[in-house]
């Protein structure tokens, strides 16, 4: 058995959902890459805001509205501090998808033109592919891809040669792949992009929940992440961006709150970050997310990463006991986030997930919103098990047990 260093943070009791039973069995949740479960403190913070401090923000003069204003501003400050956004702006969006669309529409339409290129990678989530496809088609620009090698990694040499062509306006890539788990060398990639005169955007959806992230040290011009994968509520995502770029950009969505003044034919824009937050913002969600990042900070993100690395190492080791199982992505836990995507010979991933559920284990199956990557891997779909702060080695044992039992249902031989 491999060493199981800090395989448990012993926080499961903080998450009320784990007191539920499914068919008499406890919940074994290995789908945190899709969404995380929520600790009681987050649920309580959301409820407390709605019960005691709810009013619309901005422009209210009564005491309750001032409480809501203070709660919202305080939430933004805590969220910005969590990811090291000191100089960078912290803008709220619905999720990473909307954050990327904001950049594609507001920055992309003004800065990418005929003959230009947008450079992304084969391991991107559809959220970091489709907005660039639409932009490039509209602006007659080209969309190029960095390849994923057999270890599930990108090549800095290929990045250099692509940038050397001199037409790349934007480099966009995932911090951590939601399928391969690959942790990309973000600081090195953004530095090379900047040296080549390209702007960089990083999709941090899978990174922020599980490792220390300092967006300024990483050097991206845009860094997006989402609240619901980081123990927070759905409906709130975050876009960190450099002020000097945002100042140059036109708004994405327009309407209330994002204006400075409006007359019959025209309007002027509010200051940052309000310029990019049209309409009533996600107030309660921001309060909930701030509570989530406080919770993660108290756990210490370095410990969270060590825990997820140890569990992932254990998972890779134990999955190798299942006959016919092939894990995609980096072979060692050091280079990957807390997940493993895999196929089992003779079983479709949907059936694998269905049979895992027979053993009370929640995993995901499908293309994980990464169909181009599936094509590169030569598979239609994979099953994916992903861990969070509340998982323990016993959850991995239950997964392996369920997979072996599933093979028996399919009349496949086990050792």
């Amino acid at each position, binding site marked *: 058995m491999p060493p199981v260093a800090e395989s448990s943070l012993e926080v499961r009791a903080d998450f009320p959902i784990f007191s539920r039973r499914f068919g008499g069995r406890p919940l074994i949740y290995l789908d945190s890459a899709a969404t995380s479960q929520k600790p009681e403190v987050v649920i309580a913070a959301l409820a407390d805001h709605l019960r005691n401090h709810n009013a619309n923000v901005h422009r209210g003069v009564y005491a309750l509205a001032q409480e809501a204003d203070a709660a919202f501003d305080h939430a933004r400050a805590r969220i910005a501090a969590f990811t090291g956004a000191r100089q960078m702006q912290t803008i709220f969006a619905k999720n990473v998808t909307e954050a990327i669309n904001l950049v594609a529409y507001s920055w992309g339409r003004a800065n990418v033109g005929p003959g230009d290129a947008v450079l992304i990678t084969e391991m991107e989530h559809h959220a970091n592919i489709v907005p660039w496809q639409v932009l490039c088609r509209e602006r007659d620009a080209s969309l190029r891809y960095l390849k994923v090698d057999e270890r599930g990694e990108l090549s800095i040499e290929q990045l250099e040669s692509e940038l050397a062509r001199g037409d790349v306006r934007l480099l966009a890539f995932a911090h951590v792949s939601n399928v391969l788990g690959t942790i990309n060398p973000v600081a090195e990639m953004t530095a090379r992009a900047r040296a080549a005169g390209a702007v960089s955007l990083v999709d941090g959806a899978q990174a922020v929940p599980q490792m220390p992230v300092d967006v300024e040290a990483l050097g991206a011009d845009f860094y997006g992440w989402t609240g619901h994968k980081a123990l927070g509520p759905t409906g709130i995502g975050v876009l960190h961006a450099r002020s000097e770029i945002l100042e140059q950009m036109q708004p994405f969505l327009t309407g209330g709150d994002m204006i400075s003044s409006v007359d019959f034919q025209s309007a002027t824009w509010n200051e940052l970050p309000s310029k990019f937050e049209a309409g009533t913002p996600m107030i309660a969600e921001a309060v909930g997310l701030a509570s989530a990042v406080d919770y993660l900070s108290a756990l210490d993100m370095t410990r969270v990463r060590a825990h997820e690395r140890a569990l992932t190492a254990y998972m890779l080791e134990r999955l190798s006991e299942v006959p016919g199982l092939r894990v995609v992505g980096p072979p060692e836990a050091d280079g990957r986030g807390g997940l493993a995507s895999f196929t089992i010979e003779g*079983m*479709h*991933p*949907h*059936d694998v997930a*269905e*049979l895992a559920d*027979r053993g009370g284990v929640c995993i995901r*199956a*499908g*293309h994980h919103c990464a*169909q181009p990557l*599936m094509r590169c891997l030569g598979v*239609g*779909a994979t099953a994916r098990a992903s861990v969070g702060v509340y998982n323990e080695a016993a959850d991995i044992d239950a997964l392996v047990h369920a997979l072996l039992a599933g093979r028996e*249902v*399919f*009349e496949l031989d086990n050792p």
Partner: protein
Amino acid sequence: MDDLYRDYILEHYKRPRNFGELEPRDLEALEHNPLCGDELGVHIRVKDGRIEDLRFHGHGCAISQAAASIASEELKGMELQNVGELDADWMIELLGIPVSATRRKCALLNLKVVRGAVTGDDSWPTGSA
């Protein structure tokens, strides 16, 4: 025995009937299951207004593959004008297993592709009853 993965379901999954390509063919269609990236295509040869022969091809889960295999045996010889009348209940009854909401698209993918090939209408919804 497992409720869903019954003997005959696994038997059809592992040894599907009427899988492959058909040459020459009169009708064909290809459909994707957008949830999982699976794809299923059908080739149909027509004689005297009936399905003389058909073959499925593609890849998918045990439920979608078994459904296609089981349905293929019923579809051979069927009058084309009756194919448009086949509904979700027909397929699910034929399959003979409890199909959850999430697996419904898997079970109905083959009927969607066959209906598309015969009627030219690929908008048949598999998501709800």
